[in-house]
């Protein structure tokens, strides 16, 4: 593809709902104030599990956000996604008058959130007691949110739902970047949604990957992850398109890379070959030298193995010395591990970090770990210059994704803060 035909891609809208904030302003406040959304789960019975905490969105009944007819047959996961999408459209000032007739694609990442509806149904058929209506199964396919958003806003561009576990929505943002950059789409609604489910709660407990307290990424005494739920949607468009309509721009998407460890379904490659290669490839794609990176939103799950290997990977890419000068934080210490939505939520956090020039903190890093010796911005957010930033997502199956963001372009072509 000819370089000169490539569009610059910007983020012009964000919608988000998480355990630390059920709107963009609330999330922003929670993110930079170091709020922790991890607490007892009320969505289902967790007694009997070694871990009983998760980062649950406070509103148990999300239908509160919609008119009754709008929520018919929708799963909790889809409702979370629709809430985020609605905010993203509004935040980007995209009204039907602005976007009608445009090629708008919906590219989302999915996890296991839609399984919550199936679990209700399966539990009833398994027990043989009162049977749940089969219509709840209509929201089980992973792509129902993608179709719901496209149909609700009458969007006629590409639709795709990526399901690569914890890197799903990061890869979706990368694909959205491709579609804008190549001119295939004018606007892309991208992101992901996840709700807590018994399936994932039981699964991660069975793998003994969950901390019975709050997760503490990069801390010496970390014992595993805390699951979370939420959704984040980003509006991507070309810089030219955003400029013509005087849109607010948060940041520029500079590039991304995806690869595979090809090592193990549940464990990362101990040599950190895949993780380091994906960061290095993303920097090459973005045309960036490593000394331009000031912040990394780490995958940072809080498991012993992930955090140590991610630290090794960062050092491999940036060198031991420069790696120490980069602020690295884990948003999961606040919002938990939102699986299919985590890439999008963390991308939103990274974009906000660039827009506000504040590195978000990592919570609960109380005891230093010699195996995790980078600057994890412990406890409190930090005001600092952030020219470019990476957002890492590493998934089951060895799927790795790294997104690269930079400061919003200024109208005169110089780089600067958000317009």
């Amino acid at each position, binding site marked *: 593809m000819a370089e000169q035909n490539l569009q610059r891609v910007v983020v012009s809208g964000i919608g988000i709902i998480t355990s630390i904030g059920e709107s963009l302003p609330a999330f922003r406040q929670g993110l930079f104030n170091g709020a922790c959304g991890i607490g007892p789960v009320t969505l289902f019975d967790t007694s009997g599990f070694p871990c009983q905490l998760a980062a649950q969105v406070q509103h148990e009944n999300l239908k509160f956000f919609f008119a009754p007819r709008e929520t018919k047959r929708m799963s909790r996961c889809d409702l979370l996604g629709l809430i985020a999408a609605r905010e993203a459209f509004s935040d980007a000032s995209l009204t039907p008058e602005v976007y009608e007739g445009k090629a708008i694609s919906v590219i989302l990442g999915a996890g296991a959130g839609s399984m919550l509806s199936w679990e209700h149904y399966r539990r009833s058929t398994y027990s043989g007691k009162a049977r749940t209506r089969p219509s709840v199964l209509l929201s089980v396919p992973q792509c129902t949110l993608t179709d719901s958003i496209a149909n609700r806003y009458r969007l006629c561009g590409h639709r795709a739902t990526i*399901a690569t576990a914890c890197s799903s929505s990061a890869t979706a943002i990368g694909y959205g970047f491709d579609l804008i950059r190549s001119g295939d789409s004018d606007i892309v609604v991208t992101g992901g949604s996840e709700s807590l489910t018994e399936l994932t709660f039981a699964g991660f407990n069975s793998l003994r990957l969950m901390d019975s307290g709050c997760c503490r990424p990069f801390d010496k005494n970390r014992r595993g992850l805390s699951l979370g739920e939420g959704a984040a949607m980003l509006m991507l468009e070309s810089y030219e398109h955003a400029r013509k309509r005087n849109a607010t721009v948060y940041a520029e998407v500079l590039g991304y890379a995806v690869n*595979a460890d090809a090592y193990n379904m549940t464990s990362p490659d101990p040599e950190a070959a895949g993780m380091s290669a994906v960061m290095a490839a993303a920097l090459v794609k973005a045309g960036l030298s490593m000394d331009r990176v000031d912040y990394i939103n780490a995958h940072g799950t809080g498991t012993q193995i992930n955090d140590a290997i991610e630290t090794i990977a960062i050092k491999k890419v940036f060198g031991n010395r420069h790696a120490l000068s980069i602020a690295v934080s884990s948003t999961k210490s606040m919002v938990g591990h939102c699986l299919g939505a985590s890439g999008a939520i963390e991308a939103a956090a990274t974009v906000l970090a660039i827009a506000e020039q504040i590195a978000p903190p990592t919570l609960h890093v109380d005891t230093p770990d010699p195996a995790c010796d980078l600057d994890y911005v412990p406890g409190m957010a930090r005001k600092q210059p952030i020219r470019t930033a990476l957002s890492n997502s590493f998934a089951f199956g060895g799927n790795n994704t790294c997104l690269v963001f930079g400061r919003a372009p200024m109208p005169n072509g110089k780089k600067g803060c958000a317009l």
Partner: protein
Amino acid sequence: MTDSVITGIGVISSLGVGREVFWRNCMAARPGLKKITGFDTSALQSDVAGWIDDFNPAQFLPQMTYRRMSRASQMAVAASIEALDDSGLDITIIDKSRVAVIMGTAYGSSSCIDDFFTGFLREGPRCANPFLFSETVPNAPASHIAMFHRITGPNTTFCQNMLSFETALLYAQNILRNNNADIVLVGGVDELSAEQYACYDALGCINKVKAGDGGRILPRPGGGFILGEGAAVLVMEGREYARRRKANMRGMLKSVTTVGGGFTPGQHRKQCGQLSHAVSIAAKEAGISPDKIDQISICANFSRELDLFEYNQLRAFFKSRGDTLAVSPLKYLMGDFGGAGAVRAAAVLLSLYLQQPLPTLSAEVLRVDSVSPLSWNTGSSCTTRAVLMTSATLTGSSAGIIFTAAEECGAA
């Protein structure tokens, strides 16, 4: 723009395990629909599916490798082995960071999901099986392909219901165009499970057909789809790359387009236009007029709404062909599943390569509501230069794909 060619095909299907058996049965229009014997269907309204009763993973994989894989992963890896073998690529000597794996699936392994969850219900939270859990993610088949061949390039899985392969194919083309890989293994997979079958049965959307005496099966057109399972993997690469390594080109991907309808799910008849729009874009991008399309592989699957929708859309696009429009609804033979597009694409590419047209039916059957046996036209002979493949979901997505014979095989 990079032209993408397909140089390897691997198929595990109810029409046959392995490319050659699959092709023979496909050409004879020999249905892969059978009475289900793998699980109990006595309480269900149907007992028929395009399920695979002769797939043995040991034919393809060492036992140590496949024993912890789901059936979906086993089928996907087996198809990838056959596809790579067909492509002539020596995977041991190429840069594996330049090879991508892109798969489409509706659910991945629905049996592992159900086994894990019912195990948890039965045994309690502390006894859930961790080995099953890692197979519940839809990207497990693509990850197993990567692990088996040690492929470290881009690896992504698309879940877009019955358009899963088609969206994967679009992304695979995107990867080659953006020079993110030299070779892409692109495919589709889904497995049939008791729970998945029971759910569709409860929703009332599958064909209420029971196998008759002697296994005779007469699905009711318009009576709902028939579930299937299978996997196919295609080896796709840039034409120049394939030329340089003197690869045997099965066919060329000229264009692939997906569009959304932006309407209420299930309202195809009221708000049509999206599929013919996708086909128009695909034809325009391929530089091919409707009269130059020699075959049409359609996505009809016995469901009234989808089949009629497709009929109307195709009639609008192929106006000049009138009542003579012939179509190849392969799902009538093998059932439907999220990755079925990959198996259909495999058939299209073999047809282009071997210059043997796929069996066809008159498009009029798509709107006929009868249970008489379908009258397939098999064994015709004509030059096949371009094939249109259409796909649509009941939730508003449509795709148009155009494959042509590779110039190098002389039929173009």
